[in-house]
Every structure is written in structure tokens, then in C-alpha cells.
């Protein structure tokens, strides 16, 4: 079979390639490559339609390629590293929906991170983020409220995460009940944050510090398995910790992954119609695009209707946007609600932040654990 670039070699001819086309030749041989940020800056925004910020806010400056262009200009010293120029870079949900459509599979959030890191290291930090950093430093909790729980012990540790502990304590109770019903004798500990908010906001040093603290604590429990409610915590433990050399001994599963292993044996049945909101961290970053839907499909009698769009962030991902531009985060949530309503008004999700962001305005959003537990109780 001819190669990808044979047409060009045939067309241009060797002699031309060696004179005028030398650069071209080097590129196709892979000997000359352009850095990702520049490539993205030169793209016509071929993932704009996938980006929730772009769909709702619609500005060039905060579009995926727009962010790359601003970051490139900052890197090259042509735009100042100041809050006005950093704002577009933080107007990002870190959802990586752009990656799904990018011909280069780029993560915009990833390659603008160095600019954010530089800003943090130079002290150019938004007030809204400073508060998060202080909370993490002082209480080990994003909300600034240190966990008042006690340290248990056992084999399976249920990690609640800052959002569940602060905003949805009932979900924690129900998850423990649910896991016990499944036969797991779970325990909890006095937790500290996994560190993801610091990472998202460009404070990688604080992330590493927070992560090391959390890992030491979790390792010391002797648990073999950690189950999380929040897919972001699972992602941080499983993907980011190894990337930064932080060792976490127990295996880590998001609750949906654990349910996936046992659901067929549960023989659940229900009536009615639901749709689902697939959390970005679960679908994209943990690579489980089909899981939530497949869990619902295991429930006999349940009608599942797809949302208009399969993947769209709830508006509250990435730690930055909901703090810097709360109205925009709410507008993105409202847009997602409309897409979900094209499926059904009862929505099952698997992330406490998504649930909190989307509930209301004609939608009843429930966590998969609550949804299944209710069925099991019947």
C-alpha cells in the first residue's frame, strides 16, 4: 500500500523537495515538528461546537483556538501576564470535550496550564482562587471546613470528597448504605482534599503538597480499595497521582465502576423514563463513555432516552469558571438542562457537582446511587 505522503513526493519530485520543499519534506518525515500551542493557535476552531463555553458565551477570546492564541501571545511576551489576559485562559471547564473532536487530540486545558503555572508562581492570582488555595492550606478542604469525621478502618474505603461532605452529606450516608447492601463493609476516614482544585487553577506545587498529604493518610489506613462518589477524585487518584509520582497503594474505583461489576446480579427493575447526564470526568478522563448508560440499561422496564447531546459539561467543571464567572457557569448549566429535557425530565448522573449544578428548573436530577438504592429498597 502506498504511504500517506507518497502523493506529495510523486507530485513535487525529489529535486524540488531538496531545494524549495526541504522544509515540507522534513515535516512529512517527522523531523520538524511544530509545538502544540502554535498548532492549535492556527486551527480554525474545529472543536468549537463541542466546547460548552464557546456554545454559550460565544466569544473568540475564550474559544479553544482563541485560548491557544492568547496563551501563545503571553508566552511570546506580546500580551502581558496580567489578570485581564489570564481571564480567558481560566474561562475553561477542563472538560476536554475539545479533545474529542480535535484532529490532533489536543487538550486545550493541558497546554495552557504552563501559562497558569507561571502566573501562580509570579503571584498573579485571582482573589477567588486565593481563597481556594488558603482553604486547602489551612483546612485541607476546598470549602475551608476541615472534615470533622472520625477515622475508621477496614478493606474498602469510601472517599466522600469535598463536594459530597459539604454540599450533599445525605448522599454520603446513602452511598454507605448502598455499599453495605452490596456486601461491602465500607469505612470512612477524616479526609483531606485530593488536590484537584489546586491543579485546575494552575497551582501545581500546592496540588502536589495536598496530594501527598491525602495519599499518606489513605495509604496508612491499609485499605485495599477506595471507592469515590466523585469521578474527579477517582481521576485525580488514578491518573494525576501517578503522573506526578505520588504513590497511592489502594486500587481506586469510581462508584459506577464498582456498580458495573455487580449490577447484573442485582436484577433491578423500575418503570418510567429517564435520561442521563454523563459526567465529563467519568466519560472522558476515566474513559467510561458507555458505563452510566449501560448501568441504566441493566434495569428492567426502564425507558432510557438519550439527551440531545451525549456529552456537555454541567458548567461547574474545572474549578475556575464557577468561581470567576458564576453567571456563565449557570448559563451553561441552563443550556445543558435544555439538552437533557429533549430526553426526559428525570435525569440520572454520577457526579455530585453535576447533580448540584443541574437540579431544578423542571429537571429532577438524581445520583445513580440514590436512584438504584430507591429501587433496591422497593
Amino acid at each position, binding site marked *: 500500500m502506498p504511504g*500517506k505522503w507518497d502523493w506529495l513526493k510523486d*507530485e513535487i519530485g525529489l529535486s524540488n523537495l531538496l531545494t524549495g520543499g526541504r*522544509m515540507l519534506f*522534513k515535516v512529512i518525515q517527522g523531523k520538524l515538528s*511544530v509545538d502544540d500551542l*502554535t498548532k492549535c493557535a492556527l486551527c*480554525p476552531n*474545529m472543536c468549537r461546537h463541542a466546547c460548552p463555553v464557546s456554545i454559550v458565551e460565544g466569544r473568540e*477570546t475564550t474559544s479553544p483556538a482563541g485560548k491557544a492564541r492568547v496563551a501563545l501571545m503571553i508566552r511570546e511576551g506580546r500580551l502581558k501576564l496580567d489578570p485581564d489576559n489570564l481571564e480567558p485562559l481560566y474561562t475553561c471547564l477542563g472538560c476536554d470535550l475539545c479533545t474529542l473532536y480535535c484532529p*490532533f487530540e489536543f487538550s486545550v486545558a493541558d497546554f495552557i496550564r504552563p501559562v497558569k503555572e507561571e502566573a501562580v508562581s509570579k503571584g498573579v492570582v485571582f482573589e477567588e482562587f486565593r481563597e481556594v488555595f488558603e482553604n486547602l492550606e489551612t483546612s485541607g478542604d476546598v470549602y475551608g471546613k476541615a472534615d470533622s469525621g472520625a477515622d475508621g478502618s477496614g478493606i474498602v474505603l469510601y472517599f466522600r470528597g469535598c463536594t459530597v461532605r459539604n454540599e450533599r452529606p445525605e448522599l454520603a450516608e446513602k452511598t454507605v448504605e448502598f455499599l453495605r447492601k452490596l456486601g461491602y463493609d465500607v469505612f470512612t476516614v477524616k479526609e483531606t482534599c485530593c488536590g484537584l482544585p489546586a491543579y485546575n487553577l494552575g497551582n501545581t506545587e500546592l496540588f502536589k503538597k495536598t496530594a501527598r498529604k491525602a495519599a499518606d493518610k489513605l495509604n496508612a489506613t491499609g485499605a485495599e480499595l477506595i471507592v469515590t462518589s466523585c469521578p474527579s477524585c477517582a481521576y485525580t487518584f488514578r491518573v494525576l497521582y501517578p503522573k506526578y509520582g505520588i504513590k497511592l497503594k489502594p486500587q481506586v474505583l469510581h462508584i459506577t465502576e464498582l456498580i458495573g461489576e455487580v449490577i447484573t446480579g442485582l436484577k433491578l427493575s423500575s418503570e418510567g423514563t429517564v435520561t442521563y447526564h454523563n459526567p465529563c470526568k467519568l466519560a472522558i478522563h476515566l474513559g467510561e463513555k458507555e458505563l452510566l448508560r449501560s448501568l441504566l440499561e441493566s434495569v428492567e422496564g426502564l425507558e432510557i432516552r438519550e439527551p440531545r447531546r451525549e456529552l456537555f459539561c454541567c458548567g461547574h467543571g474545572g474549578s475556575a469558571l464557577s468561581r470567576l464567572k458564576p453567571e456563565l457557569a449557570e448559563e451553561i448549566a441552563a443550556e445543558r438542562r435544555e439538552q437533557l429535557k429533549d430526553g426526559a425530565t428525570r435525569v440520572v448522573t454520577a457526579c455530585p457537582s453535576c447533580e448540584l449544578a443541574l437540579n431544578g428548573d423542571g429537571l429532577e436530577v438524581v445520583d445513580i446511587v440514590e436512584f438504584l438504592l430507591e429501587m433496591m429498597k422497593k
Partner: protein
Amino acid sequence: MTLTFDEVLKRPKRDGSDKAIAELKSILGDRASTKPADLFSYSHDYWLITFHWLLKGKVPALPDAVVFPESEEDVVAAVRVAHEHGVPIYPYGGGSGVLGAAVPEYGGIVIDLKCLRDLRLYDDDLMVEAGAGVNGYYIEEYLNRKGYTLGHFPQSLYPSTVGGWVATKAIGQFSTKYGGIEDMVLGLRAAIPPGKLIELKPHPRTATGPDLRKFFVGSEGIFGIVTKVWLKVRPYPEERYLLSFASESLEDALDSVRRILRRGARPAVVRIYDRVETKRHFYKFEEMYGKIGTVMIVEGDSRLAKAEKETVEEEFRGTPTGEEPVRHWLETRFNVKEISEFAPVGVVIDTIEVAVNWNGAMNLYENVIRAMKSVKGTLMASAHASHFYDQGVCFYFTFAGVPPKGRSAEEFYNEVWDAAMRATLESGGTISHHHGIGRHRKRWLPEELGDAYEVLRKIKLAIDEKDVMNPGNMVV
């Protein structure tokens, strides 16, 4: 037009600009921005040569302010303010236009329309109402969910907007069945100087003087700002056939399509690639390599589509090569990488789309390829034909090259373009099939239009006497 970023930022503003901006800020609040990152972000569209400038630290132009209207009233207010103060105003959709039509050449105000995004389907009337800023993919997804399609799939479907489509007279990959955007526009609303909203209602047909709707189609923001559009929709196709062929000559393939259309069949997608492009896009398909590859999609009501597919099979001169090449095209049709990969190393690439009657098709193809290749520095030139009519065809040329010693990227770029445009005019073609005119192609427009060029200019100034609507674009 190329100044460095800092030079342009320090440039004195136009008279009236400060007052206009102050007024816009009082009306729109933080929906009017003068932040450097915003000004920079609206300094260009996707006019390719400007990326070579950008890489060298130069920008085509900077606006004095960018505004983000949320309603038609906001748009009318912005046009009124621009007119009153004599400050230029440039509509901006997705910025995917490739000819500099949205570049704020003389400073002033850029108006980004992407927040005008209401959508409403009228089932019985087979019609959708869309705000000018609605994203291309978004409207198609919305319609699909309800059992319809717009049938409009430009390769820029993902980044572009409905208003941009209308303003540039865009066309999609499925055009041979569904037509260009001009065939879909039923009505529209537009804000024009001195600050008025006009509505051309969406009737099935209307004989109320010259068709003013058409007047805005392809107007590239020089008359006014399209705020809302009513478009035709079709039921989502029930049946879809994928067909491909390998022919011995471009003439054979073109003539096959001419005969298919003459018989009344309307395949949605027809793409005929010359030998170079067949090798480039279908190198994995041995039976096509070195030949002229054609991919086709026939779709619609199942009985009608079957009949059309049979017509294609009867008429096409070439070896059938199955569904796989078409699937490959469907999977890769939105992969746009070339500029990102090659512009930073100094390779100049661009595409040029023209149209010609059947009669002159082969002659034009050969002349344009020869003309582009004759420019020193050109390394390759190729084409495919991708939109077909009873009367003729659109050729979409691609060239790549490296400026020879002593010549800048821009000089080389302009030389290839000039060669292609001259060859097109001399071969009886039209200089643009769908990308439009913009700032780049306007130099060849007087020759194309002859005395009608003056008519266009007069109309523009009759509507926009102070020349504030996208000045410098299309007409001088």
C-alpha cells in the same frame, strides 16, 4: 496593513471612536470590551496569509472595541451608534471566512453575533428560525433530534455560524441535492444604518419586487447585520447509499455526473478528485490509486433514493469501488490540519474555489493548474470538483509552495492567487463559487462584474451612506 501588535495598540483611535465606545459601554455594559486580549482575538478571521503575519508578530488590524450583543435591539443600537459617530462596524460570526472579510481593517467596532442563538422549528412548514449566531453543528444536531436536517454541511460546520453562512453565501458538502444556503433562506431580519431593523418575511414564495432576501445573501456585512434567518429544513433521510468509482480520466468522471444530473437524479454528495488528490485522500484504496476517484452519497425517501442510485450506477463511467472509500471520506472530512502543520515552517498553502459551465470545465481545470504551477515557488497544485449543477461544476483548487529567495510569503501568495484568478477569468469561469470576496479577492471583482461593479458600489452607499458597514470589504 501589517503592523505589530504593539504598534496597532498604540495607534490613535479614529475620530468619534471614544464617544462611540463610551455610548456602547453605557448600553451594553461589560458586553462591550476594550481589553487587549479581546482586541487581539478579533484582529483576524481565517484568511490564511494573516497567520503567516501572526507568526511574525504582526496583526492585520485591531478593532477599538468588541461588542457582544444578546438581542436584536442590542445589534440595532450598535449600528446606530456606529452610524451616528461615523465609526466602522464589522460583523463577526465564527471567523472561519478565508478571505479577510471580517478583518477590522480601519479599526472601530467588531460586533460578535454568537450570542444571538435562539432556535425554533416549525414542523408543518418545514422551516427553522435561527438567530444569526447559532453554531453550525448545533443547529444540525437540534434538527436531527426532531427528525429533520438542514442538509447544509460546509467543512466549517463546527466553527461557523448561520449568519456567517448567509453573509458569505456558503455551501455544504451535500449541496448537489440540498443546494447552497441561498436555496434554504426563506426570510431574514437585518439591522441596517442608520439603526433600523428590517424584516423580509418567510413566505414560500413572494413576488413583491426584486428579491431583497437574496440581496443579503453573500453581502458579507457591507449592507447590514443579519440578526435572524428562517431556513428550509428537510425530513431526515430515510435511506442512504454510499457509492464510489475509479475512472480513467477526469473527463469521464465529470461527464458521468453531467449525464446523471441531466436525467434528474440528485446525489447529495458528489466529489471527484483529480489524480493527485485521489492519491492524497485515498492512498489506502489500491483500486483508486493513480486513477480519478469519485465518492457519492445518494439519500432521501427510500424509493426515490433507490431510483437515483440506479441512475448513478447506469450512467457512471468507472469501476465501482464500493462503500469503504465513502466511509473513509465521512470519517475524515472534518480533519483540518494543514495550516497548523505547515504554516509555521514557512510553507504557504491555500485553497481557491471557482465555478464554470460544463462546456469549459476541463479547459478551466487545466489552465488554472498550469497557471498556479507556473509561479516560482509553487510545489504542488491540485483540485477536486465538489458541487454540481445542471449547467456546470465547482472546482476547488489547493496549492502549496515556499516563497523563492527574495520574495515574502505574501508576495508569493498573491502571485499564485493572481495567476489562478486570471486563468479562471480567461477560461470563462467565475472567480468565486462559495468563499466569497472579502478583502483578499476584491481586487479581481471589478473585472468579474464589469459595469455591474459600479451598481454594487452604489447600492452599498445608498444603504450605508457613511460607509460604516465593514468598510474596505468587497467593494472599494
